[in-house]
């Protein structure tokens, strides 16, 4: 109650003069006073010529993004601008939610990603942001610099705040204009929020306190399906972004934040201190983007990607041309680059689309298979001896196996996020996570397989003078082999599936198009990853079932005897 009154009490003091334009009304709050900032900063960072030559020969600049369309687009624009200026770039798009991509930057796994001031303050620093955009920027920039030696470059010039959004029809029939109006009828309505928003202090938690907003039901929806869900009436209101391209397309109305709840969300590139010190030329290039955007531009670019389905690369190139940073054709070859090409003509059939992407799909499948085999091999090397050890220490076996089962229930994303501080992003944390997920079925089957191996045979062999090692090698393992292989098969199928999530931490594989497709609402892109992943799971399972038959010792029923 105190928090609520604090927020409410503070509202009148917010800067006025905000305009709300129609249903897709956007916060035109405080035209940020960034105008002079970029130049000051660029001057500050202006590199010595010698440094520039040296830095240009360094490794690629690693650009990360979050897993929604606008973040992809901004990251792609960062990348193309750097490429146009002669730098090599490594793209790490779609690194999960705020926490994942931030951890990636903090651990220096990436050099830069686009972030929003309000998110930095609330979700990362856990602070109540000031209402003034400039003050918010200063505070977040100061804190990032002091705590992690991370630097906020001057803002890009547009804000992308949360926008509580309803169907225009709903707004009309219920007479909704503000979030306060919504709070009055919310118990009768269904909310569709991203998991991120539900948990964030500047999301549902804060809305409850500030507005007393209590939805009748809250459904947790991914960004990609949220708009379709509201358009089809599955939910009644959602957390949109004010620059989303979908708001116009689906005939939605943004409700006014009449209590001034949502903090400023100015977008800016965030870079590491090392990049500022060692490659100031790179930072200067990124700083060129500062102040060049506005909400109008960003929404139209987002719409081209999310609604019209134009390829990300060509929209990014178009955006850079519009803001005057890159000449036509200067980002040469970008549109033609096969790897992350978006949708070709929307009339092409799915099969044709998949066929066009075959080279990329093959490359991703190879990468995926490599991740799976690496993880599975490591998993077997850990799990089989562990299962055998447990069989020797049966007292602790059940407890250990149950604990490993619990490990299995940790959501993959949480496990991946948990590992970034230790292992950064990329292949290492992905493989460790996949190994952890593969342990349970293999350990359990090794343990039970060896424990339940024909007790009379084991007993007799021991009584006739087999050593423990001989018993294991000639009796227990051969008899348990089919059971162990069944565990390996289960683990393999789990691993093929879970490996698609490796894309969230930049490990590549078939998850790349799935994550990108979900972020960009591009179903065909999702399918171009999901279909090969499913086929791969079937093939791996089939191949292992042959191995399983191969390792099954003769004489156990089925298969040939000597007679």
């Amino acid at each position, binding site marked *: 109650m105190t928090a609520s009154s604090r927020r409410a009490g503070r509202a009148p003091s917010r800067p006025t003069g905000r305009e709300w334009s129609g249903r897709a009304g956007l916060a035109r709050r405080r035209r940020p006073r960034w105008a002079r900032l970029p130049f000051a900063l660029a001057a500050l960072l202006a590199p010595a010529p010698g440094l520039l030559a040296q830095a240009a020969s360094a490794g690629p600049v690693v650009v990360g993004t979050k897993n929604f369309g606008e973040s992809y687009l901004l990251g792609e624009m960062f990348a193309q601008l750097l490429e146009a200026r002669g730098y090599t770039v490594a793209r790490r798009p779609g690194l999960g939610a705020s926490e994942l991509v931030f951890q990636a930057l903090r651990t220096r796994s990436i050099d830069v990603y686009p972030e929003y001031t309000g998110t930095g303050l609330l979700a990362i620093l856990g602070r109540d942001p000031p209402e003034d955009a400039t003050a918010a920027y200063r505070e977040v920039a100061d804190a990032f610099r002091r705590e992690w030696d991370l630097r906020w470059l001057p803002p890009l010039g547009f804000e992308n705040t949360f926008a509580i959004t309803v169907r225009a029809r709903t707004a009309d029939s219920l007479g909704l204009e503000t979030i306060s109006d919504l709070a009055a009828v919310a118990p009768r309505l269904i909310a569709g929020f991203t998991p991120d928003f539900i948990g964030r202090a500047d999301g549902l938690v804060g809305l409850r306190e500030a507005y007393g907003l209590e939805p009748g039901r809250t459904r947790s929806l991914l960004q990609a399906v949220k708009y379709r869900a509201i358009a089809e009436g599955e939910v009644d209101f959602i957390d949109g972004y004010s620059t989303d391209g979908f708001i116009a397309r689906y005939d939605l109305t943004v409700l006014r934040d009449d209590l001034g709840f949502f903090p400023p969300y100015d977008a800016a590139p965030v870079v590491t201190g090392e990049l500022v010190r060692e490659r100031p030329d790179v930072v200067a290039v990124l700083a060129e983007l500062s102040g060049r955007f506005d909400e109008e531009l960003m929404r139209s670019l987002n719409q081209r990607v999310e609604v019209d389905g134009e390829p990300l690369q060509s929209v990014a190139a178009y955006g850079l041309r519009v803001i005057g940073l890159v000449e036509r054709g200067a980002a040469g070859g970008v549109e033609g680059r096969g790897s992350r090409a978006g949708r070709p003509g929307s009339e092409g059939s799915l099969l044709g689309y998949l066929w066009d992407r075959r080279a990329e799909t093959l490359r991703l499948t190879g990468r995926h298979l490599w991740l799976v085999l690496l993880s599975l091999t490591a998993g077997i090397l850990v799990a089989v001896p562990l299962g055998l050890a447990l069989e020797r220490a049966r007292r602790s076996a059940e407890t250990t196996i149950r604990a490993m089962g619990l490990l299995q229930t940790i959501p993959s994303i949480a496990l991946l996020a948990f590992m970034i501080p230790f292992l950064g992003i990329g292949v290492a944390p992905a493989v460790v996570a996949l190994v952890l997920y593969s342990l349970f079925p293999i350990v359990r089957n090794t343990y039970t397989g060896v424990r339940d191996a024909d007790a009379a045979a084991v*007993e007799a062999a021991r009584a*006739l003078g087999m050593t423990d090692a001989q018993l294991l090698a000639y009796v227990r393992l051969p008899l348990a082999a089919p059971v162990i292989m069944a565990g390996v098969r289960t683990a393999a199928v789990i691993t093929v599936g879970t490996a698609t999530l490796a894309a969230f931490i930049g490990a590549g594989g078939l998850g790349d198009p799935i994550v990108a497709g979900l972020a960009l609402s591009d179903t065909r892109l999702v399918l171009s990853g999901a279909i090969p992943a499913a086929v791969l799971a079937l093939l791996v399972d089939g191949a292992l079932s042959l191995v399983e038959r191969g390792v099954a010792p003769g*004489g*156990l029923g089925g298969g040939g005897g000597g007679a």
Partner: protein
Amino acid sequence: MPPGPAGATSTKGAAEMNQALEARGVVKRFGEVLALDSVSLAVAPGERVALVGESGSGKTTLLRSFNRMVEPDAGEVLVDGSSVAARDPVALRRSIGYVQQEGGLLPHWSVLRNACLVPWLSGSARPEEHGMRALGRVGLPAEEFGSRWPRELSGGQRQRVALARALAGEPRVILLDEPFGALDAISRAELRRAFAELARALSVTVLLVTHDIEEAFMLADRVAVMKDGHIEQVAEPAALRTAPDTRYVRDLLEKAGVR
């Protein structure tokens, strides 16, 4: 003349030579249960002794203490006059034949490979020859049966293979734990007869656990009746029949219809 084992509790007055098997005051507890309550027993070389008694009387525990499948809590177990506690259990087991109720053939090994197990483990130069000879002795010629899987044999045939496997290493002692217990009456009678002939021919020392008194009387030179972890009486079948020491022994024989 070798000195006899000091304080040996031999019942046959053969103190001047080593007993093939000997238990001296053996005690074994499984948790709360006293499985063997200071049991002493001696088996002379070439002698066939049967252990009879109800389930839980301790006969299998006593049998398994001779090849160190069970380690006694107190007392001493000797094979060929030397304490088994001082011997390497693996080497000891390879020198003693063993057959259990459900044969325990390795299901993923052929009949011949099962039969050669002990010679192979002991590093014999030609384990197959030993295995083939043993299979021949139990009436399963290797040419016909050697390459079959255990599951392709009848129950009686499987127990024959188990017997061949126990004999292939040419042990001087063989331990049998209900070897015919799971068979139908006909296979059982057949196998008993075959075994009796074989044991006599090989003059191997036999310790046999069975709950079938008739079987014990037929196969053994002496029978030990066990009850609650101790031996009630050890005697030749005729002596047991005519002069049971205790009421329990008399009732047991009566129930079995051998009095």
